């Protein structure tokens, strides 16, 4: 298991424990790919009705592709930063409809310690 995969596991566990937050997104379905541009690692997750239904499955096409350095992705998944900060300053880019990124960003922001 890689560092990023472990961080994703912990992130998903923390998210699922926040039941109110999961409930807020119960209309959300999405396939998300997180790409570490420096190491080349890609981790995937599939969201169905607001819950992460699978992780690490092979994926040809995604609704949202998030690209950043491994360090930035790890910081986000370990809730040290929300994605908007590196996004605003060019350290993270996204492809896909705005809705998916905004949901992901909102979830991380809510889970991040203030």
């Amino acid at each position, binding site marked *: 298991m890689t560092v990023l995969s472990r961080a994703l596991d912990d992130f998903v566990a923390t998210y699922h424990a926040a039941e109110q937050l999961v409930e807020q997104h119960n209309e959300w379905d999405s396939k998300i790919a997180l790409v570490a541009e420096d190491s080349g690692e890609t981790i995937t997750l599939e969201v169905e009705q607001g819950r992460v239904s699978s992780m690490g499955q092979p994926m040809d096409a995604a609704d949202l592709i998030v690209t950043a350095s491994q360090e930035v992705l790890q910081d986000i998944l370990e809730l040290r930063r929300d994605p908007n900060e590196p996004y605003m300053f060019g350290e993270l880019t996204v492809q896909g*409809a705005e809705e998916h990124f905004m949901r992901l960003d*909102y979830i991380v922001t809510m889970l991040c310690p203030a």
Partner: protein
Amino acid sequence: MSGVNIKLKPGTTGGQVGTASLVAVGSGTAMASVCAIGLFEIQNLVGGVWSVLAVTVAGLLCLYLARVFVRLSDVLPSGAGLITYVSRAFGRSAGVTVVVPYLLLMMFLVGFESLIVGGLLQRLAGLPAIAGATLFIITTWVICQSGLKIGYRVQTWAMLALFFSLVGLSILLLANSAREGQLVEHLWVEAPSTVAFGTAVGQALFLFLGFELLTSHVEVAKPRAVGRALPLSIGVLFIFYATISLGFSVLPPLDGTDTGAITIPQVAVAEQAGGTSMVIVVALVCVFASFTSFNGALLALSRFVYALAAQGMLPRGLATLDRRLIAGPALTALLICALLFMVVVYRFGLYKAAILSAAITAAFVYGVSVLARQRPPFGSASGFWHKTFAWTIAAALFALGIGVIFNAGEASKQLAVLLLSGYGLAALSAWRMTVKQSKRRAASRTLS
């Protein structure tokens, strides 16, 4: 993104917007009603074909800038646009200090644009201009809060209606003037001084202001669409402004078109070319075009405000989304700002200062963007002459901005207040951000 095998799903809204829609949105954003007033000021400053020449010089500069933004967007395909490019090249503090005033002073233009819409509504329905302006801002806010975002197709139609109505009427005016044997006399006026012409070019940059915001659509655009749309939108804007500028040159003195404190030259063009019915058509087209631009701008800015609040640069309470992903508190904060700026522009007559401050911050942002293009991660191994040319263009842009400051005339004091406020607030935000980052790094070191 090299090495990435995952593509976007077909049918997703990402990767679907084509070149034509982007050209419409990019040029539509710049074709604000307030630009007609800016163009009218240029016509009054230099007159005749000299205003077209000033627009041409500014257009050529912007064509070069379009190439710069294509490169910046290709390397960093981020919807956050300007602030990401400058931040990656020069650091986060520089990004905030240079770009935030540009966005902030655009809000004064929003206030000004609202007053023009108020003037148009006064012409259409007899409402006092300030009441019409308030109604426009609040109605747009209500529609944004409902979650309705004007689609690309509607924005395209709005832009096309504005383009063909004003260009068509201007051509009609020119044809009438030629028939009366007065065209040459109107166009071929005495050459302006170098300083006046330079000021006109600086002000003409304002006309293209906002074209670069097209890069914010990169996340949903088809591959290479942004790269094609940027220079094409400059071409569309040049034709638009050059033709209307010539139309303005043959207008008689504007006596009967004052609505409140603002003279609306596009109404004068419509009146001269087609009478009352044409005024109604042009007024409706302008109001609709302003609405579509303001709707998109308000929603985009609300996301930016949300992001700044999430970073602690603005009150944290603004970093809230509802179930429909609308940043409600951020939108409300923008409503208050828009109303406040509109009242301030109206009360203190900041019309010229609002235009000039936007032109100056645009010149500085564009100059910095040119320099950013030469730095990692954007700079390629370009030769001496390429770098020298880029530095020359950047210096010319800075000089134009400074030239506008020194030739502001009666608007100098107001301009100084706007610029100092904008850059002061930005510097304060950058400082707060730096302090917050330092605290976070210190906390991380303590934990490890």
